[in-house]
């Protein structure tokens, strides 16, 4: 087990190397000239070239890549082309709120989703199941920006309970996390239900029942754990996406998260910021995947890691 973890962590390094190269190439191949976008509409060619020179954008691409990697190895992510703010600072200010929002969203979505899934599985095709699945379908079908706007109308404008946006207090996290988590909750509910329904048909469950175990013991003691494997996979994947930020929800709630930073930097072709953010997302995804893989073993001890 330990060996496996060490091996996986060591494997991240070459992977990130490849990722960094692809990201660099991809960003620089996308049309758009940061110097021109920064210089603004009044600028003439002379000024654009001066800005290019100052940002070393006039150097050959391979040299820019070497400089970038060199800086990266020295722990220097560079500074934003546009604002001259160090990238670490720009991302640092956004990642904490984004992380908190992601954790909160996935936490409630997991809890409620799994619960609805269990209830639906046990009461398959009866009214609790129907209610649960209607909730799930609604959660998936309601667009999150719509849900966000409706919540603002009710809780901020009409009732005056919550701020329309921003994160000055903890209240600012509530509505965004509901908007973000609703779809995930629904997805988890459906996965839990179908997986649990399958498991409840298995032989070992029938054996358990014939031995006279109660329904609760069977579901929680035997069936649920192994049913959660697909659920954890989905939740892990969704959590990875959440960490990347959601442009729509961040926009509706003026939430200072990673998604808006990324889209603004892409629009301005702010290479250092885009590079650092994409590297971070890749890293987060790799890490979440590793954790999911380790959870498999916990959920089903038959899964071995050697």
């Amino acid at each position, binding site marked *: 087990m330990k060996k496996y973890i060490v091996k996986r962590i060591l494997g991240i390094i070459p992977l990130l190397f490849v990722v960094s190269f692809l990201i660099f190439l991809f960003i620089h191949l996308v049309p758009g000239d940061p110097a021109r976008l920064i210089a603004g509409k009044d600028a003439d060619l002379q000024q654009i070239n*001066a800005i290019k020179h100052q940002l070393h954008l006039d150097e050959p691409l391979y040299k820019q890549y070497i400089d970038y990697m060199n800086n990266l190895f020295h722990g220097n992510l560079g500074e934003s082309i546009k604002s001259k703010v160090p990238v670490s600072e720009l991302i640092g200010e956004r990642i904490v709120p984004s992380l908190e929002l992601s954790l909160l969203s996935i936490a409630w979505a997991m809890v409620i989703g799994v*619960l609805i899934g269990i209830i639906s599985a046990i009461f398959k095709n009866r009214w609790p199941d129907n209610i649960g699945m209607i909730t799930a379908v609604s959660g998936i079908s309601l667009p999150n920006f719509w849900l966000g706007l409706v919540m603002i109308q009710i809780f901020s404008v009409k009732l005056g309970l919550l701020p329309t*946006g921003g994160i000055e207090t903890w209240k600012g996290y509530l509505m965004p996390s509901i908007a973000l988590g609703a779809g995930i909750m629904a997805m988890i509910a459906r996965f839990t239900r179908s997986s649990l329904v399958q498991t409840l048909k298995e032989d070992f469950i029938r054996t358990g029942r014939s031995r006279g175990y109660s329904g609760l013991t069977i579901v929680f003691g035997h069936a649920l754990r192994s049913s959660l494997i697909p659920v954890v996979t989905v939740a892990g994947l969704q959590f990875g996406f959440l960490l990347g930020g959601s442009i729509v929800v961040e926009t509706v709630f003026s939430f200072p998260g990673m998604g808006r930073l990324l889209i603004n930097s892409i629009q301005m072709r702010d290479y250092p910021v885009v590079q650092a953010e994409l590297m971070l997302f890749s890293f987060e995804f790799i890490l979440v995947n590793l954790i999911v893989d380790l959870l498999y073993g916990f959920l089903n001890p038959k899964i071995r890691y050697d």
Partner: protein
Amino acid sequence: MIRSKKIMGAFLIVLLALVLTACSTTRSSSDSGGAASSDKKDKDINIAVNQDFTTLDPHNVSDTLSISATHAIYEGLVGFDKDMKIQPVLATDYKISDDGLTYTFHLRKNVKFQDGSSFNAEAVKANFDRIQSSKDALIASHYLQYLKSVKIVDDHTIQLILNQPFSAMLNKLTMVEMISPKALKDQGDKIGMHPVGTGPFEFVKWNQGESLILKKNPNYWDKGYPKVDQITYKSVPENGSRVDMLKTGEADFIYPLPEQSVQALKTQNDITVDQTTSNIVRYVTLNTNKKPFNDKKVRQAMNYALDKNAYIKVVKSGFGSELDSTMAPSTQFYSKQKVYNYDLSKAKELMKEAGYAKGFTAEIWGDTDSATMKGMQFIQQQMARINIKLKIKAMEQGTLSDAINTPKSPDDAKVQMWYVSWSPSSGDADGATRGLFSSAAFPPNGSNTAYYKNGEVDKLIDKANQTTDVEKQKSMYATIQKDIYNDAPWLFLGVDTNLSAHVNKLKGVYVLPDGSIQVKEAELQ
């Protein structure tokens, strides 16, 4: 059956417990959220804007929103009043020599930067030196392209010496704001995050992507100002959310106000909607170097075929006015032209004369945002009436900019029609003309995407710049506007209206024609 009821009961209890835990998770996560809850006091105001600030370095700023903030923190030797007339600010008065080459400024005395250092001729020179020594890499160097040298006459008098007369010099100087030389030395390039100027408000905190907080400069030279203690600018990109914040009291002033919300807000007693004319002009460039747009009759026909009033009604929700020149009425030396009034039969006749009775197909380019898409669809529908079939090609701004600027020569250019807008950042006629209509400004060297070339206009643009006689300049720019409007290198569409809204108790915050927000006179009643 009984068993399943028991299970249900157990589930409900667990569910309740979990919901409660989830709520308490929320609480604890907010603690680590760290954002100090801002207790808004009586004399604090909140302004909700639609974008994020990009920099607070006044010499390297190009977006209007950031300029709003630099205008609150910094001041220039001269500045604009509400109607974009030039006023002395850090200078008490100025004199321009007869040959138009020497500008002498007498500086305001007893002015201190927010860090306590003195504002004097030395400080002014340090600012000009910074811009000039950047060798064009700072955006402000564009404003000083004709500046030869800066001479300190005495502690409170400074002279700017130009290479050639430049009629828009004072307008350009409104964009050159003074940074504390001490802060410049300490911060270097990082001045954009730690701004220090002489303005009415000083910097407190900038939460990237969220808010910018400024507080009253207690030692401000213009006694009696500012009248509020703190300003918090909040970045609220979603249109509806900005309006909601005004309703809930989270914001005292919002800009821009979405057109579709105007009617709803007008019924609210405690909120006032402001409409001010802007200097933002909307148009479509027609590539005069390419068939069939090289034919003036075709271009004029297109202008006649487009119903400008319908454009304002449909695309601008009724807010705006028709573009009756090459620049907006609030721009220096504007001169009204005879508009191409909507006349379909005249348009058809001109198309026939040009040999295009059956029309042609062409591409119209534009940005991907919904407002631009709406505009392009409207133009597409209007042009179809004279058998011009337009294909809409929406591109993201960086891609679009590349598509416009990559061609090395006018003949390589792919652009046919481009739906776009322009606003001269310093409100001067040169800024509204040279980069758009001078043949020296073909892309990639400028924004003349109509590839408009008129020898007479070229000559006049240069001549007007170098003349020192204001009346002569005025008449030259009148000729320029007349010639261009007649040549019709654009589909002339409209001039935007700036829409903002504020709670009634707030006075003195307004939007200038260039779209920047002025806060010096802000007052709560």
